[in-house]
């Protein structure tokens, strides 16, 4: 299959919903997914929740991968990539379990990946155009710093690098199944994609305020988040990589993530 062929009736798509103690919202997310995007298989990654997340997701009709303990968002999402990779899915869409991503907007991501040229990853952005979403100020500063740096590094506008509402094609799935960042992975993943000569594009989407639970990034962790991601970005620039020529298949990291 050529890398940019549009989703046909026969192509398979997986929705991955990482959830850590999201019992209040995950059921609704799964129901909405099955209702508004019925062509998707849904797998919920229960990241060692201590509440009824897994049970509720299962009752709502999702497949559930239960992590034996909390891996953090990076490890949980990578479990989704591995599942998609092993089961040969053509596309994977990542939707947060907290209900801030609208399953009704997934079609926008798919139509962007179908567009001429397409991309290996389509990222739902809150800021690509004014959508009325207002993130807390501590988050916003960080987002804009990362957006500025990534826009320079990629030489293309990146407005919302921390968004986890993303659609990946086969090549991106293979890459991230082998190697995905640990803590706060979204920003680094954009740079990794770029280093492996894969492409990303943003489309403007509507997002909701969180439905319940608490964000994985509390205000106390914001500082660690900033420093960690900045360190990863700058050190990442100096890494040697298996750099394929544009358009080559299987652009996968030489080193495996531990």
């Amino acid at each position, binding site marked *: 299959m050529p890398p940019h062929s549009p989703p046909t009736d026969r192509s398979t798509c997986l929705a991955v919903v990482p959830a850590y103690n999201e019992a209040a919202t995950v059921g609704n997310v799964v129901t909405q997914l099955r209702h508004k995007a019925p062509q998707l298989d849904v797998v919920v990654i229960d990241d060692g929740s201590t509440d009824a997340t897994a049970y509720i997701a299962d009752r709502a009709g999702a497949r559930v991968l239960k992590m*034996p*303990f909390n891996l953090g968002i990076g490890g949980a999402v990578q479990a989704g990539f591995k599942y998609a990779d092993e089961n040969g899915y053509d596309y994977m869409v990542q939707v947060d379990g907290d209900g801030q991503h609208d399953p009704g907007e997934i079609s926008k991501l798919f139509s962007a990946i179908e567009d001429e040229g397409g991309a290996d990853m389509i990222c739902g952005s809150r800021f690509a155009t004014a959508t009325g979403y207002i993130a807390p100020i501590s988050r916003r500063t960080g987002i804009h710093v990362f957006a500025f740096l990534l826009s320079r590094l990629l030489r293309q506008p990146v407005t919302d690098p921390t968004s986890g509402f993303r659609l990946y094609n086969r090549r991106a799935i293979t890459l991230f199944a082998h190697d995905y960042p*640990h*803590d706060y992975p979204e920003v680094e993943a954009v740079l990794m994609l770029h280093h492996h000569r894969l492409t990303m594009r943003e489309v403007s989407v509507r997002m909701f305020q969180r439905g319940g639970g608490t964000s994985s990034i509390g205000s106390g962790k914001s500082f*660690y988040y900033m*420093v*960690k991601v900045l*360190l*990863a970005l700058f*050190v990442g620039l*100096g*890494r040697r990589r298996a750099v394929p020529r544009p358009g080559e298949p299987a652009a996968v990291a030489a*080193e495996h*993530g*531990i």
Partner: protein
Amino acid sequence: MESRLQIVAIVGAVGLLLLVLELVRRRALMERYALLWLFSSVVILGLAVWTDLLNALARQMGIMSAPNALFFVAVAFILLLLLHFSAAMSRLSDQSKVLAQRQAILEHRLSETERRAEARELEATSERTGAVL
């Protein structure tokens, strides 16, 4: 502080800083664990370069010679790092315990399933041969 000692301290701190960055680059060290190392080496480097601050710190703590204050800070960081690693190790051993338990339970479940499937197969074949006879 004597300038020779200052040079040794600066070289040591810079060396540590570069080593940590190189290990992160090679993926031998995760960012999560590198940050405390980076912070320690930056603080020690800062104190070694900016001797006025080190002298002030020594006076405040009642330490007679400034180099001893530098050693004190370095030892404090070492203790902090050790505590950090003990905590990390505790988490890891707890996680490996959980993994081993899950693994054992799954293995048991798998062998039970296999045994039941085998028994069903055996039953089916004996029924068929019974029918033939």
